[in-house]
Each structure stands twice: as C-alpha cells, then as structure tokens.
C-alpha cells in the first residue's frame, strides 16, 4: 500500500523543526510501524539524507523506549500496545499519517521524534523505591501478601515509563505515571514504611519538572500501552493528602542531601 507521512524533523534541540512530507510507495501490511520507518530511513540514507531519529529497543512493548504520536494519538490507534507493536495492517492504501514527537516541557526534544524522558527517571529516584536489606533472597512467604493486592500492584507495576500518558494529556501531566509507581509500591507490605514520604517526594518532583496538573479527563488511560487506569491517580492523591495530613514537622522534613541528589535540574 501507499502512504503519505508527515513527520516532524528537527536536527537538534535548538534548531527549528517542521513537518516534512514523505511518500512511501510500497508498505507491506506485515511490517510493524517501526520497520516501515526503517525502510523510509534506508531510502533516506541511500539518498544521502539524514535518517529520521526515533527511539526503540525491545520492539515488543516491554522496554518503554519507543513512543511518538500518530495522527494525534500516542502510540497510534491500537489500544494497549506501544508503537513498536503497531502493525501496518491497521492502515489502508492512501492513508495520510502525521507523526510527531511527544510534547511536554519536561520532555525536551533531542532530535526528530526522540525526546529526553529522564524527568520520569527523576520522579522514580525521588521516591519510587523501598529500603530493604539486600543480599540473598528471603523466603518467599515470610511476608503474606493478599492475592488481590499482589495483582493490583502488578497491574500498576506493568508501567514501562514510556511517557505516552504525558504526551496524551492536554495538561502534560505525569499523574498516571507517578500514580502507577506510587500504587505499585504502596499496595505491598514492603512499601508501607516509606509510603507517606514517597507520595510527597514523587509529587514534588513531578512539580519541579513542570509537568501539568491532572484534570481527571482520562486521555492518558486510553493510550497507555499497559492499560493502567486512572484509579492509580486517585490513589496517588489519597496517599499525598494523607501524608499532608499526617505530617507533624514543618512542611519539609526530608534530608537535603537526598533532595539535592534527586534534583535533576536547578
């Protein structure tokens, strides 16, 4: 089939970008979307042009590296998949596709479709951990975990940190991502000790990164490749408000060294 692509091209973070049109003559329906881009890139290289930069790694929806917008939808039209799992059979001859990078102030553009999503890593660094003695693995059933909670925690832990939720959100909020991380640890017994601090620190970090605020509209859960629900955002709000209520110190009782470490940007 024949496709017309309009792809955002931008040489560097500071260069001016624009949409560039590419006519792709013979796209096989068996290709994945990224393979189709590989073919386009081969053609560009043969012509001596700069190939289109996009991130990818596993190409099976588990690493969270890939991600861009296709016709205004993060990861493209199929639900519950990352763009690397999208197949060209979704499209028909003559389709026109607009391919754009994820847009957010917290995701500075690097090149073409590749953006810097380390802001999400810094949110995890701020509180997405538990403090335990590591070493040899403990006996599995020492700490009982109800099955339902274990499953809900796993659902939230399925988040691959791709940033599609931020990209889809009209407010560029990272609430679904942050909520998923808070939910994943907060549901398990091992996550209780740091639960209050976790909510405070991760929300604070998301604010420092200048992600927007959640308006509960749900564009994020529609594009999430792991189909994480906005229930995790409610859980984040709950944990945060509870932590605010329980706080007995001044507004901040955190170790400044730790804060400085988790602070990625001035």
């Amino acid at each position, binding site marked *: 089939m024949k496709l017309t692509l309009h792809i955002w091209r931008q040489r560097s973070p500071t260069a001016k970008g624009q949409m560039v049109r590419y006519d792709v003559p013979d796209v096989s329906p068996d290709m994945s979307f990224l393979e189709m881009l590989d073919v386009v890139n081969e053609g560009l290289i043969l012509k001596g042009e700069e190939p289109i930069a996009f991130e990818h790694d596993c190409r099976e929806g588990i690493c969270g590296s890939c991600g861009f917008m296709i*016709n205004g939808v993060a990861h493209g039209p199929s639900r519950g998949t990352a763009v690397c799992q999208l197949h060209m059979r979704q499209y028909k001859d003559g389709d026109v596709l607009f391919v754009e990078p994820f847009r957010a102030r917290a995701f500075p553009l690097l090149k073409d479709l590749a953006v810097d999503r380390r802001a999400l890593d810094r949110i995890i660094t701020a509180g997405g951990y538990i403090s335990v003695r590591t070493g040899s693995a403990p006996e599995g059933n020492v700490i009982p975990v109800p099955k339902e909670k274990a499953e809900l925690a796993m659902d939230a832990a399925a988040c691959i940190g791709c940033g599609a939720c931020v990209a889809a959100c009209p407010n560029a909020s990272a609430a679904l991502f942050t909520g998923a991380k808070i939910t994943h640890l907060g549901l398990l017994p091992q996550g209780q000790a740091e639960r209050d601090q976790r909510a405070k620190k991760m929300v604070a970090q998301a604010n420092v990164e200048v992600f*927007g*605020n959640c308006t*509960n509209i749900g564009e994020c859960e529609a594009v999430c490749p792991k189909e994480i629900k906005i229930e995790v955002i409610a859980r984040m709000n*709950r944990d*945060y408000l509870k932590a605010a209520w329980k706080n007995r110190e001044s507004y901040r009782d955190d170790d400044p060294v730790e804060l400085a470490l988790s602070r990625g940007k001035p």
Partner: protein
Amino acid sequence: MSSLAVGSPYDRAFRFYESTVFKKAVMAVTGLILFAFVIGHLIGNLQVYEGPEKMDAYGRFLRIEPVLLWAVRLVLLGAVLLHILMTVQLALLKKKARPIGYVKKDNSHSSYASRTMYWSGPIIAVFIIYHILHLTLGVAQPDGFEEGHPYANLVRGFQNPAVSSFYILAMILLCLHLYHGVFSMFQSLGANHPIYTPLLRKFAAGIAIAIAIGYISIPVSVLAGWLH
C-alpha cells in the same frame, strides 16, 4: 535546616499548598460546596410553582437572620474565589507544561464536558455576576425591580427572551460542568473504585441533567405564560 535556598523550585514544591494535588483538592472541596448550593438554591426556587405568596415568604425567610445569611454568602464567595484562583493557577501551569503544541491532536477519549471545563466555568462565573445584579440587587433589571418581591421580579425578568436565553445557556453549561465536576471531585480527593466510580459517573450525569431541567423549567414556564 536545609542547604537548599528557600524559595527555590524544590523548596516550593515541598509545601503542600503549592502542589498540584493540593490545588486540585481545593478545587474539589470548593466545588462540593458550590454543588451543594446549586441543589439548595434549586429546591428553594422551585417554590415559584407554589405561587407568589410562598415564593416571597421564602425570600423573607432567607433574610430572617442577617448574620447567618452573610455567613453563608461569605462561604460561597470564598469558595467561588478559591475555585477560580486554583483554575487560573493550574491553567497557567498547563500552558507552561506544554509550550509547543501538536500539529494534530486527537482528544476523543475524554468527555466533551471534561474538555470544556475551562469554557463552561468562566461563562458560568459571568452568569453568576449578572444573576446577582439581576435578581438579588436588581440593578440589571430593566423595567423596575421591587425589593422583597422575588416572584414578581423573576417573572418580569424572564419575560425578556434575551434574559431567559442567557439563563438557559448558562444552565446547560452548568449541567456539563457538573457532569465532569461531580465525578472529578471524588477522583481529586482520592476516591476511585472499580464498582462505585462507574455508578458515580451515572449519578453525576443524572443529577447534572436534573439540576439543569429544574432551573430551565422556570424561564420556560414564564415564557410559556404558565407563571405570571
């Protein structure tokens, strides 16, 4: 004390009242207060169907205890102002958080009501000001306002089709605003449940429509000549 400069972004982010989650909680609580008012105000004003005596007596009843009346008014005013202040702050953040927009963006997964909160809200705010000038203070009443006669003022006001149209438009927007708002306030305060939240959404739709129909019935009845 920390080595971080007081007033740095990090320092600020750690104050609860500076956080996005806290601001949304404030919107939720103030929204709840205003939602309660909208219901109470409707129940009171439906007495218009019981005739002028009942309605005017209700107006006098509200004014029996001026201290109480003003206390309620101040709470409502505070709720409106905080609700607007949070909106403005969060809208500014929204602009900051995505300085470069998309060439093409599909927002079809969210409800129309949720995406138009930034429109329905301000229009309702303008309506509230007009409504107070019109039926509480009487200064926006073109042909004569009689202090203490809410029934007569209301009927005379709504006989003007332009006045009634604006009122009806504002109530339709209020319906949309409440449809998203009633669900959203629970979410912002941390309540979401796989069984109860879908029910809440249905309740929100039902109550929003009921409120809109209740209010809109009044100018429609006046225009139709049923109330005179």
